């Protein structure tokens, strides 16, 4: 097992990513996107793709950089730090991991940054792939898909959609399809998401799907999706970890600068102890996030425990960091002009996406015999 500290290569990758993002995707860029009603900047994504980020998890034979999950996590962390918006998680992590496992030919398009993917799995307010109800009705050699998917990240801007549907009973009755987003019968409605990113509701009405559209095996949808979900959960945990670092740095800076009652507010012991506690939580979460990336790289089939620990921890720590961040800032933290609220909103979305705290804690508990 690689150590949990960054390797030299990883330090270089992180420094490069941080330099690029500070320059090209600071929080002010996120604000500009928000104000313009734009979920992300396609030009920025092209640049990211050129640096190999879109292909971070794709083999060199498909034009990818094949740097692995820990590297993807480092990129996600750095993006989280400045709230850099892009289709990275949906396309370069989730879709790339699922399609790679299935040996899809579309990987090269993802690696180029040319194909944007969305994952359509949730149907209710909570992530529960095994409860998928959306119908995949056999017809001829293919299927007809009907039903509704919600909370589809990058769903409005995607070119293609991975969609999980029910072709039979039970856990073995789910099938994963890869279809173009403009296929007849598929209607997409952009949500007004609090984090100003692209989340959409997708309505499928008798959408045709052929055998060629199936990812993996018919009835093997959960297995086909698993590598994508695990990779996405780990990378999302990393993004949340970066987001936590971002808001915490802002808050610590404020504690040092801001004076009240004729002293720096960071000199008040009650705030110091809360800041120190937050530091401890951050350190513990950082370890879990790094570990999840390592396990995905080295023993992906055994990674669910590590991934769920990371996602659960990252969710809780981000929540603590944004709440302390806003409270310690006082009134200014409540204003839209200040950035703290952006971190709070994204943290809330990240908490729900791909399974909330309870979802992942339950996985951990079950695997640990509790």
């Amino acid at each position, binding site marked *: 097992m690689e150590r949990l500290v960054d390797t030299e290569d990883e330090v270089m990758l992180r420094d490069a990513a941080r330099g690029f993002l500070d320059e090209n995707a600071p929080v002010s860029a996120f604000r500009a996107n928000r104000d313009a009603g734009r979920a992300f900047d396609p030009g920025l994504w092209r640049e990211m793709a050129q640096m190999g980020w879109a292909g971070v998890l794709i083999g060199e034979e498909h034009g990818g950089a094949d740097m692995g999950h820990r590297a993807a996590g480092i990129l996600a962390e750095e993006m989280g730090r400045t709230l850099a918006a892009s289709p990275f998680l949906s396309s370069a992590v989730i879709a790339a991991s699922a399609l790679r496992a299935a040996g899809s030919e579309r990987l090269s398009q993802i690696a180029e940054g040319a194909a944007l993917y969305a994952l359509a799995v949730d149907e209710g307010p909570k992530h529960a792939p095994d409860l998928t109800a959306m119908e995949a009705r056999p017809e001829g050699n293919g299927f007809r898909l009907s039903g509704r998917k919600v909370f589809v990240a990058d769903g409005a801007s995607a070119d293609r959609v991975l969609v999980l549907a029910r072709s039979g009973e039970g856990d073995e009755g789910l099938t994963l399809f890869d279809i173009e987003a403009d296929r007849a019968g598929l209607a997409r409605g952009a949500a007004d998401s609090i984090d100003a990113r692209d989340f959409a509701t997708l309505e499928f009405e008798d959408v045709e799907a052929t055998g060629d559209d199936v990812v993996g095996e018919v009835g093997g949808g959960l297995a086909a999706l698993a590598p994508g979900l695990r990779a996405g959960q780990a990378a999302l945990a990393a993004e949340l970890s970066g987001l936590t670092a971002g808001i915490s740095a802002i808050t610590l800076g404020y504690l040092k600068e801001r004076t009240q009652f004729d002293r720096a507010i960071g000199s008040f012991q009650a705030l110091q102890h809360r800041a120190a506690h937050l530091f401890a939580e951050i350190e513990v979460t950082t370890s879990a996030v790094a570990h999840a990336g390592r396990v995905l790289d080295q023993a992906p089939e055994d990674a669910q425990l590590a991934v769920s620990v990371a996602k659960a921890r990252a969710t809780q720590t981000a929540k603590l960091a944004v709440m302390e961040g806003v409270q310690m800032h006082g009134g200014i933290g409540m204003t*839209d002009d200040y950035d703290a609220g952006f971190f709070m909103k994204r943290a809330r979305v990240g908490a729900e996406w791909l399974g*909330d705290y309870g979802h992942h804690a339950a996985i951990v508990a079950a695997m640990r015999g509790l």
Partner: protein
Amino acid sequence: MPDKLEDFRTEIAEWIAANLPEELRGQPRNEDTICWGGRKWQFRSQAQKDWLERCHARGLTCPRWPVEYGGGGMSRDEEKILRDEMNRAGAPSPLESFGIWMLGPALLKFGTDAQKAEHLPEITAGRIRWCQGYSEPGAGSDLANVQTRAEDMGDHWLVNGQKIWTSYADKADKIFALVRTDREAPKHLGISFMLIDMETPGVTTRPIRLISGASPFCETFFDNVKVPKEGAIVGEMNRGWDVAKYLLTHEREMIGGGGGGLIAGTTLSEAIGDMDMVAGADPVIRAQAMELEVDTLAFGLTMERYKDIAESGAGVGHASAMLKYYGTELNKRRQEIVMSARGSDALDWSEGLAAPWLRSKANSIEGGTSEVMLDIISKRVLELPSK
């Protein structure tokens, strides 16, 4: 005595039945339905206007204020019965205002007869809408750090400076503000509590957009504003801090005690919906909701108990900081749990859950931060040493 109260209950219930416009019955309480009053007020409906006028005529906008100022002259028990019957009938509050919550109590305690006669009837009738000017940029919790200054120009004060977090200043007719009238005096002295008409030349406002998307607060600027001296200052000159402290305590009890709509009208169960559906087998949300419900019920009883203590004449004093602290933190917890229970549904602005969730984060900042409340409890109530 109980018989008399029962008679009162019957009388009020009948009055409500006879006077409450049917279309107002059971309305949800939100910014679209609240009646704030004031010169600029546009009634949402004829019914809203009728209801205000009828309630005012009966003394129900300010039930416990003296009848001579348009109040109802009621006892606490009567007020409680009124509230019960209003709730039972699904009747909206006829009027909300900072005049009722804040300035009125200050005038009743510190005002001259002339000030009471001038302002209280306008408040009870909903004709004048007030806002509060305490905070200043850079002062934060350090409220005594007032930089806005009023210079004595003989027949008037000349006011210059800036206030922040003035709720609805853009919609208010008048402001009660802390201004520095003696620049030589130590920090907490030399401050006066001043009444200023917002239409005076030199007063401007700018709304502040919050993370929730709403803009209930403003920045308010005073640029060579001339305030006639007559009746301008409430309480003693340079002792405005006493008035402000009194009102802060009052505000704490109100915010902690569910005033200003902090305590939601819906139960947690209604807000969450079907717990089995949302939480499924997840013990985490379920446990959080259970704990919140226990604490919410106990806090409600605590508000009752504190009212009982106040009523008994013993006085709550600085312990009111506890209500402010606990009530606001409780509401923050509630909002977090509702967001979590409603999952991805809650993440769309249009669902109307995210705005109150984000708004709740200010509860523990405005009206004295939780940290200030804890300082007050530890120093004033527990009398822990400072060195």
